[in-house]
C-alpha cells in the first residue's frame, strides 16, 4: 500500500476525531457565551440553559471518571463505566454475530429462490418498523419461559436477541445486493467453467459482495450497540451501560457531571464496534478496490 493509499484509509478515522474535537469546542463555547438561564422569548425556552447543572464543563465530566461512586472509597466511576461498557459490548457482539449469520442466511435464501425473496423481503422490511421499546419486554418475557435443548435461558440472551434483531437487517439487505452484483459475463463464465453452486458462491458471489457487506456490517455493528443499550434499559438488566445511564441519571441534581460519564461510555462503545469493522475492511481491502465501496 502506498503512502497515499494508506492516508485514504486512515483519513476517515482522523475525521471522526476532528468531529469530536469540534463538538467539544462548540460545547464549551456555548457554555461560555450563553446566559446561564438560556434564552427565552416570552415564557418559552428557545435555547437551553448553560449553567453547570445542565451543561457541566467537559473537564468536570472527565474528572468524574476518577470520583468514587459512593463516598471516598470503593469503585470509581471510571471503573464502573469501563466494566459496564465491557459487559454491554459482549452482549452487543453476541447479538451482532447472530444477526450477521441470520442476515447472510436470509440473503442466500432470497438470492437462490425467487419466491422466497418475494415472500420474505416485505416482512424483513416490516420487522424494522416495530418499535424496539415495545418489542424488548416481549422478548424478555418469552425468554423467561424458554428451555431450549436443555439450555437455560438467561436474561442477557434476551438483550443479545434484540441486538441481533436490529443487526440482521442491514446485513440481509446489503448481502442481497452484493450476491446479485456479479456481472452477467462473470456469472456466465463460472457457468461455462462448470462451477458448482457452492464454488460460484465462494469464488464469485461472496468476494463480489464484500464492498456491499462492509458498509452493511458497520450499520449492523452500530445497530447492535444501540439495540443492546436500549434493551438493557427496557428490560432492566443489571451490569451494562444501559442500566448505568439510568442509575446515574437519578443522581442528576446532586452530581450533574456524572450523568454524562456513561453516555460517553456508550459513545465509545459505538466507536469501538465500528472501528473493529474498519479493521476488517483493511484486512479485506483487496476485495474493495478504492472508491468502489458502495
Amino acid at each position: 500500500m502506498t503512502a497515499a493509499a494508506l492516508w485514504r484509509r486512515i483519513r476517515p478515522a482522523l475525521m471522526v476525531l476532528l468531529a469530536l474535537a469540534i463538538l467539544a469546542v462548540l460545547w464549551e463555547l456555548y457554555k461560555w457565551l450563553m446566559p446561564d438561564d438560556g434564552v427565552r422569548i416570552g415564557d418559552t425556552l428557545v435555547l437551553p440553559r448553560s449553567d453547570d447543572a445542565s451543561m457541566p464543563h467537559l473537564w468536570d465530566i472527565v474528572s468524574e471518571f476518577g470520583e468514587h461512586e459512593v463516598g471516598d472509597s470503593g469503585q470509581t466511576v471510571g471503573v464502573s463505566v469501563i466494566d459496564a461498557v465491557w459487559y454491554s459490548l459482549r452482549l452487543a457482539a453476541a447479538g451482532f454475530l447472530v444477526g450477521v449469520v441470520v442476515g447472510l442466511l436470509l440473503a442466500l435464501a432470497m438470492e437462490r429462490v425467487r419466491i422466497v425473496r418475494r415472500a420474505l423481503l416485505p416482512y424483513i422490511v416490516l420487522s424494522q418498523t416495530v418499535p424496539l421499546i415495545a418489542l424488548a419486554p416481549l422478548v424478555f418475557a418469552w425468554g423467561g419461559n424458554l428451555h431450549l435443548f436443555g439450555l437455560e435461558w438467561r436474561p442477557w440472551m434476551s438483550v443479545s436477541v434484540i441486538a441481533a434483531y436490529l443487526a440482521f437487517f442491514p446485513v440481509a439487505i446489503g448481502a442481497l445486493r452484493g450476491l446479485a452484483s456479479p456481472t452477467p459475463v462473470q456469472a456466465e463464465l463460472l457457468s461455462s467453467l462448470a462451477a458448482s453452486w457452492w464454488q460460484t458462491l465462494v469464488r464469485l458471489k461472496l468476494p463480489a459482495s464484500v464492498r456491499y457487506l462492509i458498509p452493511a456490517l458497520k450499520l449492523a455493528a452500530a445497530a447492535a450497540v444501540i439495540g443492546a443499550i436500549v434493551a438493557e434499559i427496557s428490560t432492566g438488566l443489571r451490569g451494562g451501560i444501559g442500566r448505568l445511564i439510568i442509575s446515574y441519571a437519578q443522581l442528576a441534581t446532586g452530581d450533574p457531571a456524572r450523568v454524562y460519564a456513561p453516555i460517553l461510555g456508550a459513545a465509545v462503545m459505538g466507536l469501538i464496534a465500528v472501528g473493529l469493522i474498519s479493521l476488517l475492511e483493511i484486512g479485506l481491502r483487496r476485495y474493495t478496490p478504492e472508491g468502489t465501496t458502495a
Partner: protein
Amino acid sequence: MSDAVVIAGVGKTFATDKTEVEALTGIDLTVGPGEFVSLIGPSGCGKSTLLRIIADLLAPTTGTVTVNGKSPRQARDDQDYGFAFQQAGLLEWRTVEGNVELPMALGGMDKGARRTRARELLELVGLGDFAGHRPSQLSGGMQQRVAIARALARRPALLLMDEPFGALDEMTRERMQAELLRICGETGAAVVFVTHSIPEAVFLSHRVVVMSPRPGRITEIVDVPLGTRDDDVRESEPFFQAITEVREALRGRKHR
C-alpha cells in the same frame, strides 16, 4: 479423433409471456478437429445463441449437438472447451495469474501445478511480466489476452469465442488476431469464433459461416483458401476475393 462440434437440426425458440421468438432454425454444422470456423451475420441472427448452445449455457429447443463426441453437458463438465466472452470478465480481486488459475482451481488442480501452468499460459499470450498485476492495471487488449489464457487453461480441444476483440481498436485487433492464430497453431485447438467483422472472419478462418436473422439460420458457408496467414495476406488478392464473397453472401446475393 472425433469432430470438435457436430450440430444437427438445431433450433431455438425463446418464449416470453405473450410471444415466441424463433432465434435459430435448422442449423447443421460440423467443425473438424483443429479447424477455425467463424460465425458472421447481422445482430439478431442467433450467432451468439448458437455459441451458447454449443457451450451448454443454453439448451436447444430442437436438434442435437455433440462436442468432442459427447453431449454438451458432459463436455462442459469435462471442460473440453474454453469460452472467451466479449468482455474479458476478469475477477478484479484476483491477480492476473489468479484469474488464469481460476478454471484450474475449480477443477481441483493443486496449487503448484496451477501456478506453473498459469505462468506458461501468460508467457504464451505475452503477459509473462504481468502475473502479479490487477486486472484494472491492464489495457483492454491485455485484459482480453488474460481471458484467452484463462480459456486455454485446461487444454481444451475447442475454443468458443464471442466477439472477443469487439471492443478493441483496429491496430490492437489485428495484432490479437495474429496472436490468436499463433496460439491455435501451438495448441491445436479448434475454434468457433463469433464476429461482426468480415476481414476478421476471413483472416482467421478456414470457413466462414454466414447467417441471417428472423429466424436465425445459415445462408452460406464460404471456404477461405488462404495459406500461411501473416500480415502480407491482408493485402493479397485471395484475401480480398474471400472478403467480397462473404460480403455478397451477407447481402443475400449468390455470387457464383
